[in-house]
């Protein structure tokens, strides 16, 4: 290969920026050093560490140049190193002086942003007379180590044993350039390795954090979650103990909520500012204690457990300190910066977990309180409603003067009753305790009953109510009462929003292989598209309604359908109408329909038969609502019973002995001796006495009382026919 002819002078005139011509002077070049330069280039090209290779590099340098000192400064954000070489006989003061010169030069050449501390004043670089005298005839060539588009990160300083000329300078400049490239490559490699190590550490921390977060999700209670987190934390950090301490409401004391590896010594509290956890809480910062023996006020439980080192972090939730989490070890040990950061991340998560759990507990408590209030309110509202509805039966139905007002009273009371039922139903649905008793039911029968129930409202509004039923009846598995509630809810809505002369169509058809779809389609005003996602929300009401109702009907419809394993849906076009649909599971082929109508008929026949035996049967009715009690007594007497009454449990007890009733009818919620307590006392003397409980409470309260007291029940407001049937059944059983 032909070597480059370096003798040829560079072009004497080359065009410069802006069109100006520059005059160049040929520079004498030295071929003797070319070989050395190649050698240096080779050494630097294969070099992975200047620490290892600088000896070889310098030996090549000294072959061609007679040197006194060589100083190499290499400084970056990560490195700050100095390599110095001196010829034999050079004193340490001279070496130090050479280093100073190199540092001053670097201070001038380095960009302010790269090495702010190293920047020196010009006077220091270009010392005044005194320093100049000290330097004497020492001549340093100090060239920056720099690569394109970056500031000088170091210098190569050469001090010749004899005067250096431009050929030497050219050689040193070429070496400095090679060195800069090699060092820059090494810097990049080091930075890459550091970045890779950092990424691996971050990845490991992330895995640890994921494992700990996963552990937190595994618990079904806060205690289980915390214990799982502490176990994972202890395993990750390799510690003997891990604990979570929560701040008390007074803000001055921490108490141990969960721990692993600590015996329960009863020492579960620590004052803020005292001991390890207390100091962490007081400073609100991550703290490390390498020897707990030297800390005052440390929780005795830790000392008894032989704990030496502890790392703890404050836990925050919504910017408030909620406690402290710590890991601790029985052997003295340190923790890395990454472990410290990981613990803070975990502490933040635990803080959130605790906060969420607290909020959840508060929400559950609020729901329980609301349910209790709703239960009481519904009971208290049902009592007067019961009296109103029973009293309407005492009014002369055939007197035209009273017919309309009685109808208004009855309709209003029934509407109020439906609203109370809606509130109770929503409570049950939300709590997941809506009671559903499914039986096979024929869809035709369900629809026929719903249509019959809605006929008066349909006639009043002058709308057409049509049905579209399949040729072969579809049998579904459902709670008839609940599905009637759904159908009447949907039909009531449809009637409300369909204009006069409009039409409503009820359809039932198979939906897939396992469900039937019931649809109620109206030709009403329709629902705007933006409202459709909200129609099944609680308390949502169409804007055009006059707020006649609770806004719970569709939410209850959805809850009931879903409790059956079905779904609800709505389609609507403004101005054309709306179709609400719900699905119910098909009944299994072997199951027979309940034949509700037949059963009702049979019950009616049996009732007529039993009526003949009522005469003389003694009934004791106990209720604290005097108006309802009086009305009930009157109506039962009309039915042929011998009736005695009592307004509370205490008065009822002697009457049970004196009056010797055949059936006891008791209100559940009474002041003083409550209904269930009265029944328990009565059972002591008359264990087989039939008892019927009257209650305005929700289903689950009734079910509990019924099972414990071996009593049947009837819900307020009382339908007299229903009560008579219940009495008849009770008497029948006794016989």
């Amino acid at each position, binding site marked *: 290969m032909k070597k480059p002819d370096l003798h040829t002078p*560079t072009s004497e005139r080359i065009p*410069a*920026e*802006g069109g*100006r011509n*520059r*005059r*160049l*002077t040929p*520079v004498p070049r030295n071929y003797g050093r070319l070989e050395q330069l190649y050698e240096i280039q080779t050494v630097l090209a294969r070099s992975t560490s200047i620490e290892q290779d600088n000896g070889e590099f310098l030996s090549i340098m000294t072959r061609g140049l007679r040197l006194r000192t060589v100083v190499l400064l290499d400084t970056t954000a990560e490195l700050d190193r100095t390599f110095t070489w001196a010829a034999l006989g050079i004193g340490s003061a001279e070496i130090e002086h050479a280093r100073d010169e190199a540092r001053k*030069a670097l201070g*001038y*050449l380095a*960009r*302010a942003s790269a090495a702010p501390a190293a920047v020196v004043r*010009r006077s220091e*670089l*270009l010392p*005044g*007379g005194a320093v*100049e005298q000290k330097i004497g005839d020492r*001549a*340093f*060539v*100090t*060239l*920056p180590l*720099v*690569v*394109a588009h970056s*500031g*000088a990160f170091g210098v190569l300083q050469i001090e*010749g044993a004899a005067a*250096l*000329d*431009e050929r*030497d*300078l*050219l050689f040193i*400049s*070429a070496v*400095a*350039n090679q060195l*800069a490239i090699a060092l820059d490559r090494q810097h990049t490699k080091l930075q890459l390795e550091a970045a890779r190590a950092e990424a691996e550490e971050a990845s490991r921390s992330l895995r640890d954090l994921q494992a700990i977060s996963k552990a937190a999700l595994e618990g079904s209670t806060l205690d289980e979650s915390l214990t799982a987190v502490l176990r994972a934390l202890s395993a990750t950090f390799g510690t003997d103990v891990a604990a979570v301490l929560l701040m008390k409401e007074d803000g001055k004391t921490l108490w141990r909520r969960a721990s692993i590896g600590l015996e329960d010594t009863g020492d579960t509290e620590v004052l803020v500012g005292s001991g390890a956890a207390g100091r962490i809480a007081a400073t609100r910062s991550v703290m490390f204690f390498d020897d707990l023996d030297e800390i005052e006020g440390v929780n005795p439980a830790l000392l008894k457990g032989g704990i030496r080192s502890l790392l703890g972090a404050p836990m925050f939730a919504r910017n408030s300190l909620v406690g402290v989490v710590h890991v601790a070890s029985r052997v003295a040990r340190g923790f890395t910066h990454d472990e410290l950061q990981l613990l803070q991340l975990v502490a933040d998560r635990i803080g959130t977990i605790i906060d969420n759990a607290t909020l959840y507990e508060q929400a559950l408590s609020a729901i329980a309180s609301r349910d209790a209030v709703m239960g009481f309110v519904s009971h208290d509202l049902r009592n007067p409603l019961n009296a109103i509805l029973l009293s309407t039966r005492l009014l002369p139905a055939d007197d035209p003067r009273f017919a309309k007002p009685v109808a208004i009273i009855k309709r209003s009371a029934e509407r109020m009753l439906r609203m109370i039922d809606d509130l109770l139903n929503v409570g049950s649905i939300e709590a997941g305790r809506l009671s559903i008793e499914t039986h096979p039911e024929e869809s035709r029968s369900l629809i026929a009953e719903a249509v019959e129930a809605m006929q008066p409202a349909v006639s009043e509004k002058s709308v057409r109510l049509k049905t579209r039923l399949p040729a072969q009846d579809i049998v579904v598995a459902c709670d008839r009462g609940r599905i009637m509630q759904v159908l009447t809810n949907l039909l009531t809505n449809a009637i409300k929003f369909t204009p006069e002369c409009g039409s409503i169509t009820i359809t039932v058809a198979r939906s897939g292989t396992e469900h039937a779809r019931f649809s109620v389609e109206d030709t009403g005003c329709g629902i705007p598209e933006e409202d459709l996602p909200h129609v099944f929300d609680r308390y949502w009401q169409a804007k055009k309604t006059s707020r006649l109702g609770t806004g719970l009907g569709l939410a209850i419809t959805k809850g009931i359908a879903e409790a059956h394993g079905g779904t609800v849906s709505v389609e609507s076009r403004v101005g054309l109408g709306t179709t609400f649909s719900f699905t119910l599971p098909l009944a299994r082929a072997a199951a027979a329909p309940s034949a509700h109508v037949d059963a009702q008929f049979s019950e009616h026949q049996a009732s007529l038969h039993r009526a003949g035996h009522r005469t003389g049967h003694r009934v004791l009715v106990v209720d604290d609502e005097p108006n309802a009690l009086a009305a009930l007594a009157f109506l039962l007497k009309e039915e042929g019973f011998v009736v005695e009454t009592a307004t509370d449990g205490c008065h009822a007890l002697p009457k049970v002995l004196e009056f010797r009733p055949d059936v006891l009818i008791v209100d559940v919620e009474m002041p003083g001796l409550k209904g269930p307590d009265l029944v328990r006392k009565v059972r002591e003397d008359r264990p087989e006495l039939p008892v019927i409980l009257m209650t305005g409470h929700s289903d689950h309260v009734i079910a509990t009382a019924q099972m414990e007291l071996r009593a049947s029940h009837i819900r307020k407001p009382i339908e007299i026919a229903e009560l008579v049937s219940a009495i008849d059944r009770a008497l029948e059983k006794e016989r």
Partner: protein
Amino acid sequence: MTGCESKHHVVVNGWLQRAANGDTTEALIGAFEDAFAALWDRSHLTLGETTLTAIVERVLHVATKQFPQLGSLKVSASGLNCHELRAHTDLRLDQIAEGIPFVLVEFLTVLGKLTAEILTPALHAELSNQPIPKGSREEENP
């Protein structure tokens, strides 16, 4: 002031006397651009553009602190760029006449110090041999 530094001043002042013979800012900047280009090209042969750029950047950094009007001078791989400086039409001749010699002396001083004054004689010669700028009074009135 060191011996070398006073020599730099003498050479630069000599150049300035000849260059400032023209009576416009534009002419002086033009003369400076030619002079610095000569110094750059001469140094470039030995030191290469990366090293030279690093040195000139620092020289300009120091000069700009003392003479902010020189802040528009830019260094690139091909040397000093005076385009932006020339575009400042509000610059007075006396401001330029003060700042430009500073840049030249600073450059010669720093470069001399860093290279054990090896290049100094050659650079002085370059500056001394700078032709008289076109349009100067001397040229108009030989």
